[in-house]
C-alpha cells in the first residue's frame, strides 16, 4: 500500500531522513518508534505531503505521490496529481487541529461534502455514524472548545475516517492528552485496528498499546530504519543495543 524508496529530507543542515526505504502492506498496522529527531514524525508528514522529500519516491496504492509517469519516465508531479493521490491518505495530529469555528458534526462533514462531493444528507448521516462509533454520538452539535482533549481527538479520528482513506497516519495522537483521557482514544484506535481493513501508520510512545495492535514495529534512528519486525521481536528481543537502550529509557516511565 505504501512504498517508499530512497526518501531523503533535510531541514537546513539537519538531515532527518536518509535514503529511507519502507514498505507497508495493505491492512498492515505499523508502529514507528524512535528518539526525537530520528525522523519518525517526518516520515509520516512526507506520506501526508506536509513535507516534500528532497529526493526519493513515495507510492500510495501503486501510484506515485510526488511523481508522474510521462513517456515511461518519472517526472515531478503537478499539484493536481499530488492532490489526487493524496486523497488516499489522511492524518490525525498530536494537537487535534480541529476547526474551532465549526461544530463536531461540521468538522466531520466538511471534507466529504467539499472533496468527495457528497450531498449534505449523505455526509451528515455518515458523520453521525462515525461520531457514534467513536462514542460521541451525543456531541455532534458541540464545538471543540466544549470538548475534552480525548473527545477532540476522537472527533479528529472520525473526521479523517470520513474521507474514506486507504492509509491513516497517527502522529503521537495521545501525547498531548491528560493521562486519564488517553485510554478512550486508544480504545477507538484499537477498535479501528481490529476491524481490519485500514492500513495504519502510528508514531507513538504507548508501547503497551503498540505491542497489542501492531503487526510490525519499526525503530527509527538518525533518519534510517534500525530495526523492523513483529512486536514480540522488537520489544522482547531487540537486535541492536540502541533499540534496547531506547526501549529501556521509554519504559522507565
Amino acid at each position, binding site marked *: 500500500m505504501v512504498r517508499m524508496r530512497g526518501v531523503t529530507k533535510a531541514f537546513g543542515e539537519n538531515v532527518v531522513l536518509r535514503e529511507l526505504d519502507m514498505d507497508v502492506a495493505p491492512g498492515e498496522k505499523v508502529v514507528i518508534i524512535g528518539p526525537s529527531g530520528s525522523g519518525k514524525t517526518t516520515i509520516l508528514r512526507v506520506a*501526508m*505531503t*506536509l513535507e516534500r522529500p528532497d529526493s526519493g519516491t513515495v507510492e500510495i496504492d501503486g501510484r506515485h505521490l510526488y511523481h508522474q509517469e510521462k513517456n515511461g519516465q518519472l517526472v515531478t508531479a503537478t499539484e493536481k496529481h499530488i*492532490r489526487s493521490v*493524496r*486523497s488516499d491518505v*489522511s*492524518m*490525525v*495530529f498530536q*494537537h*487535534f*487541529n*480541529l*476547526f*474551532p*469555528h465549526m461544530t463536531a458534526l461540521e468538522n466531520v462533514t*466538511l*471534507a466529504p461534502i*467539499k*472533496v468527495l462531493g457528497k450531498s449534505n444528507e449523505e455526509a451528515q448521516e455518515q458523520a453521525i455514524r462515525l461520531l457514534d462509533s467513536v462514542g460521541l454520538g451525543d456531541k455532534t452539535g458541540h464545538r471543540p472548545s466544549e470538548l475534552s482533549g480525548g473527545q477532540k481527538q476522537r472527533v*479528529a479520528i472520525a*473526521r*479523517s475516517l470520513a*474521507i474514506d482513506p486507504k492509509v491513516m497516519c497517527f502522529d503521537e495522537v495521545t501525547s498531548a492528552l491528560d493521562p486519564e483521557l488517553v485510554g478512550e482514544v486508544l480504545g477507538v484506535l484499537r477498535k479501528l485496528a481490529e476491524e481490519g481493513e485500514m492500513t495504519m501508520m502510528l508514531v507513538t510512545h504507548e508501547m503497551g498499546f503498540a505491542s497489542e495492535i501492531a503487526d510490525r514495529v519499526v525503530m527509527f534512528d538518525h533518519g534510517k530504519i534500525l530495526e523492523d519486525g513483529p512486536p514480540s521481536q522488537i520489544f522482547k528481543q531487540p537486535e541492536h543495543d540502541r533499540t534496547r537502550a531506547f526501549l529501556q529509557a521509554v519504559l522507565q516511565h
Partner: protein
Amino acid sequence: MNQVTDRPVWNWDVVWEHLPAIWDGMVVIIQATLAGITMAMILGLFLALGRRSERRWLSWPFAAFIDFIRSTPLLIQLFFVFFALPDMGIVLGARTSLILGLGVHYAAYASEAYRAGINAVEKGQWEAATALNLSTGTTWQKVILPQAIPKVIPALGNFLVAMIKDAPLGQSIGVAGVLFVARSIGSQTFQYVETMTIAGVLFLAVSVPAALFVQFLERKYGYEAA
C-alpha cells in the same frame, strides 16, 4: 466684542443660515468614506493575498506597493489620481478620485491587518486541511478566512474612523465636502469662526459615534478567541 474685527465673537444667525449647506458637505464626506472603506476592505484582502504569494516575483511588487503607499501622504496620492492620471489617459471626477485615493491608501493598511489576522490562524489548521485533502479554495473559504476575519474587524473599524478624518482632504481636489463648503462660505462672508466651528462640531458628531462603534466592535470580536 472682538477687538480686531469689531464684531460679535459669535453670530448665531450665520450658523442657522449656513448649517444646511455645511451639513450637505458632511453627507458628501460620509458617502465618500463608506465607498472608500468598501473598496479598501476588498482591495486590501487582494493585496494581502498577493503579498503572501510564495512566488517572489509576485509577492515583492505587492510588498513594495503596500510599503510605498503607506509611507507617502494621502494628499499627494490624491493629487496623483486627480491631476496625473488624466495625463495617462485615466480621467476621473473629483469624488471618484477621492474614493479611489482613500480606497487604495487604506487598502494598503488593511492588507497588513489581513496579513496579521491570517498569520494568527494556527499552522495546525492548514495541516488539518491538507490531511483532509481540501482544495485551496475550500481551505481559504471554510477554514482560514472564517478564523482570520474576526481578528481583522476591529482594525478595519479603526480604519473607517481614520478614513472619516481623512476624507475632508478631498477639498483640495474640489470635492464639495464639509471643509470645502465651510471654506467657501467663509471666504464669501468672512464668518470663518462660525463656519469652521460648525464644520468641526458636525464632524465630531459623526466621528465620535463612529469611534464608539469601533470600540464596540473591538469588544465584540476581540474576545471571540478561536
